[in-house]
C-alpha cells in the first residue's frame, strides 16, 4: 500500500487533481456547512499557516524549534497593542506584524543560531516560556497581564468589514494558499536546496559553499514572519489576546503538525494540520478519552509512517528541466 501511495503522489496528473479538488473544497465548503464547521475550518487554516511557518524552520532546515508559539504570540500582541493604542487598522498591521515578528526572531535567534539539535530545542522551549511569562507580567503596562488585551478591531478594507465566520474563513485560506505557493517555489530553488543541505549535513553544506549561519537565520526570520501573520489573523478573529493562548502545548501542536505531515512537505503540512485540528473535534463525543485516543493515533502515525503521512518527494531531473527549460 505504501508503494501505491508513493506512486500516486509522484504522478503530476494525480497531484494536479488533488490541488484542484482541494481548492474546490475550500471554495464550496462554507456554503454547504454550518457556522460551527466554518469556524473549525478557520482554525484549521490558522494551524495550517502556523504549520507552514514552522515547516520552513523545522522541516526544511531541521532546526528543532519547540517555541514557535512565541512568534505567533509576538505577531498577535503586535497587532493588539498597535490597534488598541494607536488605532492602526488591523489589515495594515498584517504586514507590520509579520515584519516585527521577523525582526524579533532575528534578534533572539542570532545568538543561539549556532546551537545544534537538542541544545537549540531546549533554548527555543525557554524562549517560548520567556515570551509567555513576559506577556503575563505586563511589562510597562502594555500587554495587559494575564487578562490580555481586549477590543481589537475587525479587519476593514474601505467600507468592507471582515466580520462573519465565512469572511474570516476566506481571509485565512487565501493567505494559506498564497504562502503554500510561495514556499513550494522556494523548495526547488537555490535557497530551498541549501536549507536541505544544512538539514542533511551542516559541515558538508558549509564546505560546499553554503553560508550556514545566514541561511539558518533566514529560515527563522521567514518562519517567524509567517507566524506573525497568523498572530495578526488570530488577534483579529478573537478580538482579544491573552498569554494563555500561547502556552507550550501550542508549540508542541505546531511541531506535531510538521512531523505528522512530513518534514519539509507542504501538502504534508496541510494533512498534518487537518489531523491535528479535526481529530479532537470528531471525537468530541468521547469526552475525556478523546485526547487519549488522539495520542495513540499520533503514535500509530509515527510508527507506520515515520517520514510522515505525505513525505516530501524530491524533484526529479525531468521536473527540474521542465521548470527551467533547456539551454
Amino acid at each position, binding site marked *: 500500500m505504501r508503494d501505491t501511495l508513493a506512486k500516486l503522489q509522484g504522478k503530476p496528473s494525480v497531484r494536479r487533481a488533488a490541488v484542484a479538488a482541494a481548492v474546490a473544497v475550500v471554495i464550496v465548503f462554507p456554503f454547504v456547512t454550518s457556522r460551527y464547521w466554518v469556524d473549525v475550518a478557520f482554525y484549521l487554516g490558522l494551524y495550517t499557516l502556523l504549520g507552514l511557518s514552522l515547516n520552513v524552520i523545522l522541516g526544511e532546515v531541521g532546526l528543532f524549534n519547540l517555541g514557535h508559539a512565541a512568534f505567533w504570540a509576538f505577531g498577535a500582541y503586535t497587532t493588539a497593542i498597535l490597534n488598541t493604542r494607536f488605532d492602526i487598522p488591523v489589515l495594515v498591521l498584517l504586514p507590520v506584524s509579520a515584519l516585527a515578528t521577523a525582526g524579533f526572531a532575528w534578534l533572539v535567534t542570532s545568538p543561539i543560531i549556532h546551537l545544534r539539535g537538542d541544545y537549540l530545542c531546549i533554548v527555543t522551549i525557554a524562549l517560548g516560556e520567556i515570551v509567555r511569562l513576559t506577556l503575563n507580567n505586563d511589562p510597562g503596562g502594555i500587554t495587559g497581564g494575564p487578562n490580555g488585551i481586549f477590543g481589537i478591531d475587525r479587519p476593514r478594507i474601505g467600507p468592507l468589514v471582515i466580520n462573519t465566520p465565512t469572511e474570516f474563513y476566506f481571509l485565512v485560506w487565501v493567505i494559506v494558499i498564497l504562502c503554500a505557493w*510561495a514556499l513550494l*517555489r*522556494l523548495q526547488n*530553488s*537555490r*535557497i*530551498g*536546496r*541549501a536549507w*536541505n*543541505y544544512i538539514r*542533511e*549535513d551542516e*559541515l*558538508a*553544506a*558549509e*564546505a*560546499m*559553499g*553554503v*553560508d*550556514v549561519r545566514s541561511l539558518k537565520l*533566514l529560515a527563522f526570520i*521567514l518562519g517567524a514572519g509567517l507566524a506573525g501573520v497568523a498572530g495578526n489573523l488570530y488577534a483579529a478573529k478573537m478580538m482579544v489576546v491573552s498569554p494563555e493562548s500561547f502556552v507550550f502545548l501550542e508549540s508542541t501542536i505546531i511541531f506535531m503538525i510538521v512531523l505528522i505531515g512530513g518534514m519539509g512537505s507542504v501538502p504534508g503540512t496541510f494533512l498534518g494540520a487537518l489531523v491535528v485540528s479535526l481529530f479532537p473535534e470528531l471525537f468530541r463525543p468521547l469526552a475525556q478519552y478523546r485526547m487519549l485516543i488522539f495520542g495513540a493515533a499520533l503514535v500509530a502515525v509515527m510508527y507506520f509512517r515515520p517520514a510522515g503521512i505525505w513525505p516530501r518527494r*524530491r*524533484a*526529479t*531531473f*525531468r521536473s*527540474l*528541466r521542465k*521548470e*527551467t*527549460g*533547456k*539551454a
Partner: protein
Amino acid sequence: MSEAILQVRGVTKRFKGLVAVRRMEMEIAEATIHSLIGPNGAGKTTLFNVISGIYRPEEGRVIFRGEDITGRKPHVLVAKGIARTFQNLRIFANLTCLENVMSGQHCRGRCGTWSSIFRLPRQRAEERRIREVAEEWLEKTGLWEFRDELAKNLPFGLRKKLELARALATEPKLLLLDEPTTGLNDKEKEDIMEFIGALPRMGITVLLVEHNMNVVMGISERITVMDMGEKIAEGTPEEIYNDLRVIEAYLGREEAIA
C-alpha cells in the same frame, strides 16, 4: 616549475597543548597533483582542515593565489576556488544525486528568496546553469543513470564518486581530497585514481591526503611527508621513495607494527 597556487607558511595548530601541526611549510604548484602523506595521526587531516578553513591556525598563514586566506570560513573559500571532500564521506543522504551535485554550484549563484518565489528570468537562467553544471559532472563521473536516485541508496564506491562530483561542481581551482580511495576495492581504486590523474589537464590543482604511500606514488608530481605534526621530507616520488627518514619514520614503523 609553475607558479605556486597555495602556500602554507609556518602553520601551527594546537589542540589544548597538543601540537597537531608544527611550523608547517608547503607550496603547491598550479595544475599538479601534490600528495600529503604520513602515518595515522601525523597531522595531515588537521593541516587539511586549516587549509579548507575549518580550523584557524594559532600561527602562520595560508596564501591562496597571492591572497592571505588564513582563518576564512569554508563557504568563503569555496567561492574563491578551494573545494574539498571528506575522509568519512559526508554526502546529503536523503537528497537525490543530482541535488547533491547541484550543491556545488550554490556558491556560484546569487539569487535569493524573492527572485526564487517569483521565478524572475535571471533566477530561471541561474537554476538552469546550476543544473547543467551538475549534469556535466554526473556524466563525467559515470553517475548519470543514478541522477534521480537518493544518495543513500548508492553503493559505497559510487557515493565516493558522488562526493568527488559534488566538489568538482564548485568549479574549483584547488581540490583537496582526503583519502579518496579508503574503503574501495582495487578496481574502484584504480578507476578513481585515473579520474583524479586527469584533473590537472583541466586546470585543477589537487592536494591529495593519503596514508597509503603506494596509492600516491604513481600520480603525484610532488609529495610532502608528515610525521608527528611536522614535515619530515618533500620531493618527487622517487626522492621520497629513497629518503631514509621517510623509510624509518613511516615505512619502518608500519613494518614494525606488522
